[in-house]
């Protein structure tokens, strides 16, 4: 009996002792994070979950469908999630509806370790804290290029020439792939290509679209040339399909997301020969010196419709989630915006694209409507049933209808 009491007292004191260290310096708060589902975000949320315990609860919902319900979830009062992990495009609907709060005071209080370029400021107010960068860039197989006798391409014209040589040499029938699945992916490929021309998407200062011009036709023609060197099913290729084709050794040159780098260069899913020959390099240019790609950041935001206590707890937890320890433990999973990040082969492409002067994806409130219109209307041109000018006219008409309905025009 006496021994039992000693054992019980001993256990309680040990438990009480460990509980005192949980909480990241917080005493209470409810943290609920919504975000996309890939390795880097999972690592950040795992780091944030370390703050749980002792009055602080941390939950998360990571899903690829997050952008479809983030607006509805954060409109509720109190909001269903205290934080939404967003990128350049998915922050826009939250900004438009005033669903995320300014982080100026929280950054002043808890954000001493944050770099200035991590703070996303809109009109002078910090609205998000970015922790990683991403971009679509070029992947190529050095062994196949060598066998065909071509140099590493730095412009899309060179990509087409190299692919034609690879095909002529009989090495591969469909050496090229991009993420050209009808919908968001196809829209993104056009936007990236159009960025390479340096032209703007809209008339300055207005929401009127202006892509039916020589730059638009140039971008479309290059996309068509590239798809002619791709597998005929290219309109079903999303980023999972292209990565699978790459790991299966069926591609020689591809444009894929930088965040795929770590999983393509690891020892799973492919052969050592393919992985050893895979080179990640900056996005090619189209006409001129600007890379035909867009830069993306991923960061966290804090909802407006929650208590200040929850907001503070969420901020502290997520700052913990992007702390130096987490970055160092997950170095290869993303291009982290952190001073302790060490660039590796998996990040060479994103770094090169950023260094070459690529622009970020436009954070305009009506860009999403143009993106959807592009993704829906460009398939006909790529299948050869429509001219470039007609396709661009269709895109402009579809965008204008949507913009009028949403109140931008």
């Amino acid at each position, binding site marked *: 009996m006496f021994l039992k009491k000693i054992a019980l007292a001993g256990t309680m004191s040990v438990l009480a002792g460990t509980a005192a260290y949980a909480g990241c310096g917080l005493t209470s708060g409810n943290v609920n994070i919504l975000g996309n589902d890939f390795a880097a975000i999972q690592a950040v949320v795992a780091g944030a979950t370390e703050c749980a315990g002792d009055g602080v609860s941390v939950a998360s919902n990571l899903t690829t469908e997050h952008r479809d319900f983030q607006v509805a979830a954060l409109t509720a009062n109190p909001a269903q999630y205290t934080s939404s992990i967003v990128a350049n495009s998915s922050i826009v609907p939250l900004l438009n509806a005033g669903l995320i709060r300014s982080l100026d005071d929280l950054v002043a209080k808890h954000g001493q370790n944050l770099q200035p370029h991590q703070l996303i400021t809109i009109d002078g107010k910090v609205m998000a804290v970015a922790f990683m960068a991403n971009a679509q860039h070029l992947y190529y197989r050095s062994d196949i290029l060598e066998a065909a006798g071509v140099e590493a391409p730095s412009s899309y014209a060179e990509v087409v020439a190299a692919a034609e040589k690879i095909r002529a040499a009989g090495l591969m029938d469909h050496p090229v792939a991009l993420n050209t699945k009808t919908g968001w992916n196809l829209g993104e490929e056009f936007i990236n290509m159009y960025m390479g021309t340096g032209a703007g998407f809209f008339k300055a200062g207005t929401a009127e679209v202006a892509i039916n011009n020589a730059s638009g036709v140039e971008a479309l023609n290059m996309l068509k040339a590239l798809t002619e060197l791709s597998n005929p099913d290219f309109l079903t290729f999303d980023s999972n399909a292209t990565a699978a084709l790459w790991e299966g050794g069926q591609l020689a040159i591809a444009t894929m997301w930088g965040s795929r780098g770590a999983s393509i260069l690891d020892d799973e899913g492919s052969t050592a020969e393919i992985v050893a020959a895979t080179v990640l390099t900056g996005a090619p240019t189209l006409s001129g010196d600007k890379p035909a790609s867009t830069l993306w950041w991923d960061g966290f935001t804090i909802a407006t419709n929650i208590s200040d206590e929850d907001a503070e707890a969420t901020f502290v937890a997520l700052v913990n989630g992007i702390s130096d320890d987490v970055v160092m433990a997950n170095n290869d999973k993303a291009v982290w915006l952190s001073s302790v990040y060490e660039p590796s082969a998996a990040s060479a492409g994103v770094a090169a694209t950023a260094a070459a002067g690529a622009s970020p994806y436009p954070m305009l409130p009506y860009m999403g409507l143009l993106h959807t219109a592009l993704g829906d209307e460009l398939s006909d041109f790529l299948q050869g049933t429509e001219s470039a000018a007609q396709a661009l006219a269709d895109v402009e008409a579809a965008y204008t*209808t949507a913009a009028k309905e949403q109140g931008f025009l």
Partner: protein
Amino acid sequence: MRHRTFIWFILPSLAAMIIFIALPLVSVVTQSLHIEHQQVLVITENCGPFGCQQETSVDAAATAVLRAEKPLGRFNGLGTYFDRGHLASKEVSIAWANRASFRGFLSDLYNLPFYKALAFTLSYTFLVTPLVIMLGLLIALGVNRLTPALKGPTIFVSLLPMIVTPLIGSLILFWMIDAQGIIGKTLQWLLDDPVLSLKASPGLTWATLFVYGVWHSAPFAFIVFYAGLQTVNTDTLEAAQIDGATRFQQVRYVVIPHLMPLVVFIALIQLMDNFRVFEPIIGFSAQANATSLSYIIFNDLRGDVIRFNSAAATSLLTVLGVAILLTPVLIRTWRDFKRKVV
């Protein structure tokens, strides 16, 4: 049954239908008649990891004030129904005025998203429905003649295509019809065409979707006809056999008239279901070649900017389409009912 008893009896399900069907329908109709408020745009300086730039953004505070005054948005009447994303009345009349030939007009019409979706939806509905009925009847007649020992397992296997979740079934078939999948490669070998791809051409994609549709829905017709076959009047059948009728004549003159009400029933259900075709398009990633009305509703509700008003208008056009399709069947049923009552 007295009226009072009847009302009390159906009150729970009536209440559920009003709350979950009628009221949401009223809400959808209201949404389809409105559009968003004019957004207040301001130029602000936005800074991020890649530098600072001057960009347009929405003045959230001003927009919130507008929304608080009138939460539904601006009243647009039937404007959304006639815009380019729906019935496109202006574009259609321009295409008709400038037409070079009727075919040219049709291809201009096909360029508009609603009519493109409508074309596939109607083709799917009018091809798959009769094929499902015929195939279901054939399978039912075949299974009915099997030895009892084999009937059980055969019925189980015949029902499987309907039991498999549409999305999973179509995804598995999507992988199999790939140029490097088992069905794709076999077709290439059979047709001696090494570059044949079922996913690349619109015609072949439509054919694949129709085949999937028939394969998925035939078990429903089969099981309904199979149940009906058990109630066929054996005296009439025997009389027909004695009179020297062939198997085909027996089926045509005895079995099929007996099963007619079931044919009407299946046709009704299939017309309603096939008009709302959606999962195969997602499962087969066929959006480039085939879109349907349900797919364009789904497309409006996805993405960064969700277009509730446009989706509501397309939904109501779909409901209208189903009502138009069902009218002949309903008139026939009404006439039969009146005849029987008299």
